[in-house]
């Protein structure tokens, strides 16, 4: 399993190498998103990683390789989720550092956004997005799932718009979450993301097991 995670990161050297450049580009692209800036950057960089992993696998027909090797399918599927988690957890502090540097240099104003908590929220966001996309990817392969990916992406952004407009009206459930305190909410959010990711993993595994190569 670790070998497969390493493979994902090795293959994406071109994503790991210039990651600073991507963070910089997205720092400017998302400069008007307020406190959500770090979340948006980590989500964008993380999602690029998921898509490029799929693109490379498709290019070399990697499913034929991995399914010919002595590797159980649960490891092939699990490695993609785990590699994404490892990658975005590494990207999160880098994003915080870049935003803090750009803010202190007066290039952008991201004082509120440059927090590790915000960046880690991005890890959660990308895991949720990937949890929606990966079952489609493992069921249909990269080319077909790319079309469905657009639906996932548009759907996610529509949902986030609805949620943020709902939050801005301070509904009762937000007040209830406030009363619980930051730590409880954070643990709850991590738990919820974990449940979504685990459920997604099992769906992906089931669908991948039905595929032929």
């Amino acid at each position, binding site marked *: 399993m670790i070998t497969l995670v390493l493979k994902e990161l090795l293959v994406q*050297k071109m994503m790991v190498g210039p990651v600073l450049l991507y963070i910089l580009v997205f720092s400017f692209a998302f400069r008007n998103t307020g406190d959500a800036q770090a979340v948006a950057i980590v989500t964008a960089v993380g999602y690029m990683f998921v898509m490029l992993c799929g693109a490379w696998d498709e290019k070399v027909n990697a499913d*034929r390789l991995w399914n*010919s090797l*002595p*590797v*159980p399918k649960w490891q092939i599927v699990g490695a993609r989720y785990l590699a994404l988690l490892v990658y975005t957890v590494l990207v999160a502090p880098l994003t915080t550092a870049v935003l803090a540097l750009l803010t202190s240099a007066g290039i952008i104003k991201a004082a509120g956004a440059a927090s590790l908590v915000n960046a880690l929220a991005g890890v959660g966001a990308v895991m949720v997005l990937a949890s929606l996309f990966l079952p489609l990817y493992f069921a249909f392969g990269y080319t077909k799932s790319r079309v469905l990916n657009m639906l996932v992406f548009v759907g996610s952004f529509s949902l986030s718009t609805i949620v943020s407009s709902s939050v801005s009206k301070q509904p009762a459930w937000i007040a209830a979450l406030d009363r619980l305190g930051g730590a409880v909410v954070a643990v709850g959010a991590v738990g919820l993301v974990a449940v979504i990711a685990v459920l997604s993993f099992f769906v992906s595994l089931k669908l991948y097991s039905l595929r032929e190569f």
Partner: protein
Amino acid sequence: MKPILELKNVTKRYTGFTLDRVSFALEPGYIMGFIGPNGAGKTTTIKLIMNLIRPDEGEIKIFGLDHRRHEQEIKQRIGFVYDESNFYDTLTTTEMTKVIAPLYKNWDWAAYRKYTEKLALPDRKKLSQFSRGMKMKYALALALSHRAELLVMDEPTSGLDPVVRSEFLDILRDVIQDERCSVLLSSHITSDLDQIADYVTLINGGRIVFSESKEELLEEYALIKGEKSLLDSGLREYVVGLKESRFGFEGLVTNRAEVQRFVGSRAVLERPNLEEIMLYCLRGNGNDHAGA
């Protein structure tokens, strides 16, 4: 001796193509050539063996084990080389090997180094800079570095120049010397199999035409040339494939010894090669007339 690979009535149905009750067996220590025209079912059969696709019917046993129930155990003991490289172009051979090696319990770094040196494979070069021949040689080095007992190869030599093909075949010959490893080698290039195969299986239209030892095939079949009147004197029942012209005929006959007695000095019998056997077996003795 127990077969190392055994297919019994394996069927796989697609729209427009059916792999129909395919059965053959490979004994330990032998090379089996798997031949047939494009679209005959060679790759489908190999995918079934590798459990990349599921059979609709039939049974596949590898090392005496059910190939689906014992998939991981079996794959530890199989080496494979496919017609296309499935390696990541962004990686060097060293990086790719470091990913693959830990997956095999019996990985042998000494063997890997031996084969990469023998095949002159650079270790710090990206796979994107490799030619097709080098990628195939690299796949062969990987397949031979974990003490595999069965090598499954799907058209590994197609598109390779004669020098690389010869290197490839030399290594296979060496590997088979220890009589522990068996090879299933699918190929269009029957001259390669003339050199190294012990058994030959011919598939056409999803059905096995024959699966026999090469020596028996070469003894059993004969090329024949003669005048057309000979055909009408009772020879046709021995004819497997035929080309007729205004001047006579040439074809492939079975039961060589009997045919020799039958025709005496009226026709010339020659030993065929695998390509001729394949072509005539596929051509049949119907209405396919050559020449004018």
